[in-house]
């Protein structure tokens, strides 16, 4: 599904390399986790895949089901099925959460040549999915992420994901800031979406999330590269011993 090959990325403004030859393949139906020290480039990777400005790709490629992601506008990547749950969700004052969701859903449907969802149908679906995430009606009416607590923002990202039904879901530290119960809600939300046609790339610092969302593959990222790949046990090893041994081994 997602195929990243020898990706080199630098910050446009500072001419500073961040990703230094990153390769990663995520197959349909699988869940991959990425762990790695602060500043290793995990969020940068997710932004570059989603198409944020400010990065220059100097080498390598990133394909989504054979389509060249790096050539596409951010909105086209979204309509092609890519979704990023932001590490820091953005506030949009004055724009109701529901309006935002509906605009997004219909924009993607339009891009795919589908009819817009009717107001009634949309409302029904959104209520149902919000209920599962314990997002109340009041929060749906409030402006996007404005005044939301850290955990509410993260749950709101998962609601967007559930509504948009992307095929490639990238979750950037969705677990940070979640209390134990919210972690369970979010994980259940993600697990409910798991199916053969969909893949997940879960960026996290903690094993806790991976207890709920069992990954098939775990990658360790350091200094802009994947330095080790293994099974779920790799996450446990990081949890116990930190990164020192793995990094030493990689050099």
């Amino acid at each position, binding site marked *: 599904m997602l195929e990243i090959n020898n990706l080199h990325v630098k910050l446009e*403004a500072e001419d500073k390399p961040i990703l230094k030859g990153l390769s990663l393949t995520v197959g349909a139906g699988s869940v991959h986790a990425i762990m790695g020290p602060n500043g290793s480039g995990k969020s940068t990777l997710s932004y570059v895949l*989603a*198409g*944020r*400005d*400010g990065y220059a790709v100097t080498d390598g490629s990133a394909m989504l089901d054979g389509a060249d992601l790096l050539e596409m*506008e*951010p*909105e086209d*990547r*979204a*309509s092609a099925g890519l*979704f*990023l749950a*932001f590490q820091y*969700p*953005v*506030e*949009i*004052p*004055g*724009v109701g959460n529901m*309006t*935002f969701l509906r*605009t*997004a*859903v219909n*924009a*993607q449907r339009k*891009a795919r040549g589908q009819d817009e969802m009717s*107001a009634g149908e949309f409302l029904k679906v959104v209520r149902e999915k919000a209920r599962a995430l314990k997002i109340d009606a009041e929060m749906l009416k409030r*402006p996007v992420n404005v005044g939301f607590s850290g955990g509410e923002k993260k749950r709101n990202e998962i609601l*967007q994901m559930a509504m*948009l039904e992307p095929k490639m879901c990238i979750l950037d530290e969705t677990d940070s800031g979640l209390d134990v119960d919210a972690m369970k809600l979010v994980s259940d939300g993600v697990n409910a979406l798991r199916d053969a046609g969909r893949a997940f790339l879960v960026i996290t610092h903690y094993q806790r999330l991976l207890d709920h969302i069992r990954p098939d593959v775990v990658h360790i990222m350091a200094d802009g590269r994947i330095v080790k790949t293994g099974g779920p046990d790799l996450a446990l090893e990081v949890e116990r011993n930190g990164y020192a041994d793995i990094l030493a081994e990689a050099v």
Partner: protein
Amino acid sequence: MTALETELRADVRDGVDRETIDTVQAMSGSYKHGWETEIEMDYAPKGLSEDIVRLISGKNNEPEWLLDWRLAAYRRWLKMTEPRWAMVHYPDIDYQDQYYYAKPRSMAVKPKSLDEVDPKLLATYEKLGIPLKEQMLLAGVEGAAEPRKVAVDAVFDSVSLGTTFKAELAKAGVIFCSISEAVREHPDLVQKYLGSVVPPTDNFFATLNSAVFSDGSFVYIPPGVRCPMELSTYFRINAENTGQFERTLIVADRASYVSYLEGCTAPKRDTHQLHAAVVEIVILDDAEVKYSTVQNWYPGDEEGRGGIYNFVTKRADCRGDRAKVMWTQVETGSAITWKYPSCILRGDDSQGEFYSIAIANNAQQADTGTKMVHLGKRTKSRIVSKGISAGRAQNTYRGLVSMHPKATDSRNYTQCDSLLIGDRCGAHTVPYIEVRNASSRVEHEATTSKVDDDQLFYCRSRGMDEEAAVALVVNGFVKDVLQTLPMEFAMEAQSLVAISLEGSVG
């Protein structure tokens, strides 16, 4: 007067993507009402003179007093100079090089009813989405439980074509007709109130209007009556090289209520056209008037060719105790906007509100705001202004809040927010505040910000294209003001915000 002048210019962050600015810029020019109605017109001779003033007065069969009133204004106007204090720049206007009166030939004999009006003219309004048949309602009200009736006065160049729902309104005692008709049918009311809020000597453009106004709307709501439907006037400029000078007079008698809407559009032309209107509102004890405008005159092209010069004087006089007025304006059109809908809070406990969205894109220039003149005790006013600048546009909020010595225990709250799109436009805030008694309070808040790249990226990462993302973010910015509009207008305004910003930036 203490003129407290602040000028806010936001720093533009480096992150703005040049390329997106240019791409979006290239998509500009989607003014939806720029077409023209091909129709035979009768013009008064070009230029301005006493003869032209007499001719206009004669066309409307006016009484002697009104002709004298016009002539006095004209003579005074000759001695006045055009105000140039606003932050707008334009070449001198040649007042002799335009027409002051243009009327469709088919209107030479005034049709008895709208049914008899030239089908071409009726088709014009149909194309604009303005219902001139009483069974038709304003289109596009999604989710409205029951569509509401809106009475329309349709003004085409210099004349009113007719007014809908007159009979139904008359049953409630409401008078709604063109001002030329009111002069003939209700001379006492007109003579009593005309010029009582905006005197013919008020300012250069108002004085010009007093001399040459050709038509406009008249509203009278009798004591205790809540107007049974919304009233509206739709102004269409069609004729080339012709100024439109309309005059609107609204009188809300004791404890009455009316909501009035005003819309306007004009064809795309590469020459400028002058529009100098006057709106006067008189509000007596316990009465309330809501006046909403969606101003969508042709704004000119990206280079600043063409577009309407909109020099307008609007004022409401809360003459009675507990009188209330609310101005809401959505200013998206015009090459130049010079407009300060004002409230004279004369009655004790009277209230004035001003809500404004002013969008200036490309080469547009807007200098707009309000005056809140507190004269009565315990008077209250509220100003919420949202200015949006894009392209090379300049957008100025200019507002006066004045508390008279007798206006004790009065309050004003002003909130003035500017949003910049791109790095070549400007936003300016010029508040004048004078407080001449110790018990009154004035609060002023101002912010200037830029459309945030992170917000746009967030929207785009969810599948919205750049224009949709800008429109969504901007609609969020203006939400407080949109909410004050009647529903039909709010939706029109919302889509207009998006259209006006086509060709702006990310």
